[in-house]
């Protein structure tokens, strides 16, 4: 009798597991299918095209050419120029945008209801499309009739060329991009700040810590996970810079604002060299992964302990 019962129980378990797994996979299927179709498949196709001479107008004549695209890429002067431009942009945008976001978050981080006005004001650039913002700033920054130069002239400063200067254009784009993106990160920092228990601040104050000491020894350490996430997403987003140069400067003047993503777009869809553009995408994507990993190691070292 015991033997019979045991056999019966054993047979039941596998059946139930199989059924549950199937149900789970069916629920996962829509997301996995979409992810596969729109992310993994295009990435694999890009890898494949990077080894071909795919020309947009003659897809049927595509031929395998091995690593020729990558060889040409390594000696391409505009690729080098665009990489230098994007590194410059990334190095500047990280501290400026993240610092601005943190500063704004600290400003609005209190219990008064009136701060809702400032939250909305600081956040509103985020909801505007980058293309609209770029066009708006084109008018503001016009060397001859822009509002910015009108204001500067009131302080006796001569009209600045801004976007028409090869030396100033990228800095202008940095400022505009930081202005547009800081609001989003302000909210994330705000959430991080509000998750810090007030008891820790009370303990710090009891120990005689002033406002500055509280910031450096309580706020920043407690915000580390939030900061890490923000730095990572900002880094990746910064590397994707394309809209501002495309709309405001078309990569000029003199290629001073040409970025890798814009160069990829132009090569692929204006010049129709999709194979070469795919090679750029593969190489540049790899570069971003490397920098992201390096950043996590550099900034997130303590977390790994």
């Amino acid at each position: 009798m015991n033997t019979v019962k045991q056999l019966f129980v054993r047979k039941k378990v596998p059946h139930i597991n199989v059924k549950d797994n199937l149900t789970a996979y069916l629920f996962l299927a829509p997301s996995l299918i979409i992810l596969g179709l729109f992310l993994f498949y295009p990435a694999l196709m890009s890898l494949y095209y990077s080894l071909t001479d795919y020309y947009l107008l003659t897809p049927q004549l595509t031929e395998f050419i091995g690593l020729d695209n990558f060889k040409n890429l390594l000696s391409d002067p505009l690729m080098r120029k665009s990489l230098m431009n994007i590194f410059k942009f990334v190095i500047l945008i990280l501290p400026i945008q993240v610092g601005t976001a943190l500063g704004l978050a600290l400003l609005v981080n209190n219990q008064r209801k009136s701060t809702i006005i400032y939250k909305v004001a600081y956040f509103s650039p985020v909801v505007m499309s980058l293309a609209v913002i770029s066009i708006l700033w084109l008018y503001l920054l016009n060397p001859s009739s822009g509002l910015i130069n009108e204001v500067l002239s009131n302080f006796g400063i001569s009209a600045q060329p801004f976007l028409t200067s090869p030396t100033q254009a990228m800095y202008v784009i940095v400022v505009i991009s930081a202005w547009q993106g800081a609001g989003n990160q302000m909210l994330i920092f705000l959430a991080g700040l509000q998750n810090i228990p007030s008891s820790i601040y009370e303990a710090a104050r009891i120990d005689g810590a002033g406002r500055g000491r509280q910031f450096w020894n309580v706020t920043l350490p407690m915000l580390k996970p939030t900061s890490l996430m923000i730095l990572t997403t900002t880094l990746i987003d910064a590397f994707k810079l394309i809209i501002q140069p495309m709309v405001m400067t078309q990569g000029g003047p003199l290629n001073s604002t040409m970025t890798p993503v814009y160069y990829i777009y132009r090569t692929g869809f204006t010049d129709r060299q999709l194979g070469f553009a795919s090679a750029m995408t593969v190489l540049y994507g790899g570069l971003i992964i490397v920098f992201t990993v390096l950043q996590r190691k550099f900034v997130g070292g303590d977390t790994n302990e």
Partner: protein
Amino acid sequence: MKLKKVIAVLGIFIVFLVGCGNNDDSENAANDQTISVWVHVSREEPEGQAMEESIERFNESQDDYTAEIQFIPRSGSGGGYEDVINAALTTDTLPDVLTVDGPNTAAYAQSEILQPIDQYVSDKDDVLPSIIEQGMYDDQLYSMGYSESGIGFYYNIDMLEQAGIDTDALPTVDEPWDWDEFNHMLETLHDHYKKPILDMGFDDQSEFLLYAYTPFLWSNGGEITNEEQTEAVGYFNSEESHETFSFIRQLVENDYSTISPVEYGFHTGEYALLMSGSWTMQELDEEYQDINYGIMPYPVSSNTHELVSPTGSWAYGMSGTTSNPEGAGAVIDFLTQEEQMYQVSMANSVLPARYSVAERMVEEVSEPMQLLIEQNTKTGRARPSIVNYPQVSRAFQETVTETTYYDYSPDLQEILDTKAQEIEVYLNQEN
């Protein structure tokens, strides 16, 4: 039970897809005499309306074919229409007739997206040479332009007279000014207004720069490439090129023109002169009616005194994969005859592509438009028909831009040498 339901739903979905496919096949069979036409404008635009009316007239004029027009508006950055064509290439769903931006003809012809239409277009002798030139590739006609465009130098009559310039003694198409005479006028205006007075579109970083500035180069006897389009070194960096770009550079160095013009500066009286196309007339006539303006032709090289003006616009082409070339050819021929071209040109305020249309229009349009038409019919030259035109035109654009940034690129010959080599690479690039 649950699994069976899922399979049943998927099965229904699959049957639905197959059903759609079958429907497509039957539709194709029933419409062998339907000619599909894709155009890059929207139905609401005057040009789109004129096209639609022309298609209706085609359908009424015969019983063999029925043309169906489809509007796929082109967005400002070149997306939209081109994207749809590119997608159609990979799915083999190109229409029978499509509009093509003139300079794209060579690339589309080489890729067999278009096929030759020589035998379908009638009355070629009546067509402007620039239109034929624009549509040629490998000695065959692949696209037929249905309208022209041109650029002139808009001038503010009041501002010129205030500076003491006699507006009754300005240049004409038959008696254009050379670069020295042109500079003299600029100097007079600059001395009076103490600021840049000519908007040359230097802030534009698009194909406009090749379109607008090649006539200066050609007027001086310069070229971008050799006749076979295999060499640029020795042509684009020639002495004639150097002289031309020196002339362009001094316009900025002397403060006659600026690299960062105020938008609509001419329209608002900021600038006395504006180098722009026929499309600007509509803006001025409709929204800036207090500007009293005229148009003068291009200045000519002081060496040759030969007037050359820019041309080119969109054209009709026949798909290389059409199953009904006779029908497609009939549509293209009808749309590019005098009457239809006249309707499109008048509706869209563009220059005519046929001599006969020009003769009809001259009596009905304004004096500035008359000058542009005259300049176009007498001196127009097509943009180069090059397979890698996007790359070549950008190299030319960058040459113009670097010429105007004289502080950063002081050696003009070095710019020309570099760009000539760059262009030569594009000319011989395998696709």
